[in-house]
């Protein structure tokens, strides 16, 4: 995914949190506006797209289901890149990026499972099956939640950074498993139809709304991610200031 290489760019250029705050503050309004506009266009396109001859109206669920699943994986990839940043360059902002992406990734994973379930019920006749694709995405959700628990378990964010980064990278093996599960195993879930070596097998009338929705989701992700990162930086700043306040009170250093 191209976004992950781009993300590596920010971490090196926006070396210090203050500069990140200033820059993200300027970018955020445009990003949010772009997210809203693309979402509106995407929603319009997905409701005007023709119905599928097999699946009828339920095919419209695809336009919010598939991008959610993509974003769930992309978010994890962003976290994996950030984790490399934490481990290799020990960049404080990398940890902030990885940590604040967690709830967003969990939300997208949850959405892909939920909308998939709502799509599966009328199509397959069941809310849930334990097939490879569904199960591996469920495992992804568990990993998001586990990482959130790990961050929550440490009261000092600096101490959680490295263990969380290691765990994130170990868990990254799940991402290719999710992607190729439909090809490697015979499953109920349909095989990939957009991102394929021999080009998409999906009709253009459905492909375009899907792509627009994917762009909208990506913009929503980065908007939320920037906001969450800013919050996290402020949170750490507050913690640092409190520690400092504690040091200066009580006159232990006074004669």
């Amino acid at each position: 995914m191209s976004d992950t290489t781009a993300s590596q760019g920010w971490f090196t250029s926006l070396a210090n949190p203050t500069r990140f705050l200033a820059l993200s503050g300027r970018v955020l309004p445009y990003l949010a506006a772009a997210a809203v506009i693309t979402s509106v266009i995407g929603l319009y396109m997905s409701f005007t797209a023709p119905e599928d001859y097999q699946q009828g109206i339920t095919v419209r669920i695809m336009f919010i289901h598939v991008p959610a699943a993509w974003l769930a994986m992309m978010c994890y990839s962003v976290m994996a890149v950030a984790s490399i940043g934490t481990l290799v360059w020990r960049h404080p902002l990398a940890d902030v990026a990885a940590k604040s992406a967690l709830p967003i990734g969990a939300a997208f994973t949850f959405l892909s499972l939920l909308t998939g379930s709502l799509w599966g019920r009328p199509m397959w006749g069941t809310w849930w099956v334990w097939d490879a694709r569904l199960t591996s995405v469920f495992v992804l959700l568990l990993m998001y939640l586990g990482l959130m628990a790990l961050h929550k378990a440490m009261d000092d964010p600096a101490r959680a950074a490295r263990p969380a980064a290691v765990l994130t990278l170990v868990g990254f093996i799940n991402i290719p498993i999710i992607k190729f599960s439909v090809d490697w195993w015979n499953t109920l879930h349909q095989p990939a139809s957009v991102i394929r070596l021999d080009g998409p097998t999906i009709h253009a009338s459905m492909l375009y709304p899907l792509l627009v929705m994917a762009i909208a989701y990506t913009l929503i992700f980065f908007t939320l991610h920037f906001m969450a990162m800013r919050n996290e930086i402020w949170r750490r700043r507050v913690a640092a200031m409190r520690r400092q306040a504690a040091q200066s009170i009580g006159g232990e250093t006074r004669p």
Partner: protein
Amino acid sequence: MQAVATKLTGRRGDSLLFEDVSFSLQRGQALVVTGPNGAGKSTLLRMLAGLLPAESGTFVLSGDDGVAVPVAEFAHYLGHRNAMKRELRVSENLGFWKDFQRSEAAEGLSIDAAIEAVELGGVAHLPFGYLSAGQQRRIALARLLVVSRPLWLLDEPTAALDRRSDQLFAALVRDHLAQGGMAIAATHQPLGLDDTRSLVLAGRHRAASGSVESWS
């Protein structure tokens, strides 16, 4: 109000730590327990607090009318550890103990006043875990102030405190005594309290008999 200990004997495992420890304290008096490591100072204090059963002997706290009162409700115990939660704010910690140990008899200081009394004004909103070891100990002392109880049982109260805080602590105990309280403290360091009684635990561990030099 007075506190009377009669022929207390403390035992750890097979060895007797101390034998026949007797003393009595009146309002406004303090007892300092000294002795080498392992002499049983902590054991004695925990025994007085009712946290350990006495091998033999009694410790009775009685009110001004001479009727015995439960030690658990009329004594503060400050052990080696501070009894505070790292993840909660200082004000939440003190507020909890104020609520939890509340007695009808007497009101203690307000939380803010207690924090001021240990000269840490401004830390109320900070999580307890952010404080240095010395500051944490001072907040632990503030707990004794938010609920008013006549007898203070203090085990190494000045551990982790610098000299200035030592003096602060001594002043707190003096105030407490002046208001008619009592204090029993185990410590290696001089507390800077004038007119205190002292009890020396010799720390000779013997299976058969121990030796105690009584307070002067």
